[in-house]
């Protein structure tokens, strides 16, 4: 299951989507919104994506993971729009006959998603400023009246 959603991620539904009597192991990863990053306080996040490409890249990730490891089901869900503190922005679940494959594939999926899937995060800092996060690129602080 591949999903980009504006809604809160339903972890029960994510776990149900990978359940199988062939599975001996399920690994679920949740990326959650941390309040402090290097001592700076976050109020919330906003996520934006290039939808068609993000969907396609997530489908490629699933296909690649299935080629590399023995997996039964793979689910990738990424949240878009406004995400509050402590909430999950991404959920990755895999089921496998064996736990080694489930852990390795789960970690590879989140590592690779973060490298290649066209989704962007805006940090809304507690001090009222906000900025798009673009690793390696000089920082831009957004005006509060970002048009989107």
């Amino acid at each position, binding site marked *: 299951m591949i999903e980009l959603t504006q809604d809160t991620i339903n972890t029960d539904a994510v776990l149900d989507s990978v359940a199988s009597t062939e599975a001996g192991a399920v690994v679920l990863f949740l*990326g959650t919104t941390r309040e402090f990053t290097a001592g700076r306080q976050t109020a919330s996040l906003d*996520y*934006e*994506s*290039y939808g*068609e*490409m*993000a969907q*396609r890249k997530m489908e490629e990730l699933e296909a690649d993971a299935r080629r590399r490891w023995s997996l039964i089901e793979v689910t990738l869900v*990424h949240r878009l729009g406004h995400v509050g503190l402590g909430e999950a*922005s*991404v959920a990755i679940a895999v089921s496998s006959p064996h736990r080694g494959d489930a852990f390795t594939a789960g970690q590879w999926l*989140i590592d690779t*998603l*973060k*490298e*290649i*899937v*066209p*989704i*962007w*995060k*805006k940090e809304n800092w507690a001090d009222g400023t906000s900025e*798009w*996060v*673009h*690793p*390696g*690129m*000089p920082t*831009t602080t*957004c005006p509060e009246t*970002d*048009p*989107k």
Partner: protein
Amino acid sequence: MNIEVKLFAAARQAANQETLSIEIAEGATVQQLKTELGQQFPGLKTMLDHLLVAIDTEYAGEDQVLQAGQDIALIPPVSGG
């Protein structure tokens, strides 16, 4: 030829619009598109070295030749997850 370029995140914000329309020569490459964008939209100039280009929802190399009708997007460094 005229192409539309989709923008996201800080690139969208710098240009203050979601798509740019730009005139490039027939046979222009991704590299040439980026140079042209920097000249016509100064707000993008400092970002260009960090931007990738996607053609039809696939990452494109710098030497890839653009064609009319393709779906073109500027992809700043991603930060999902």
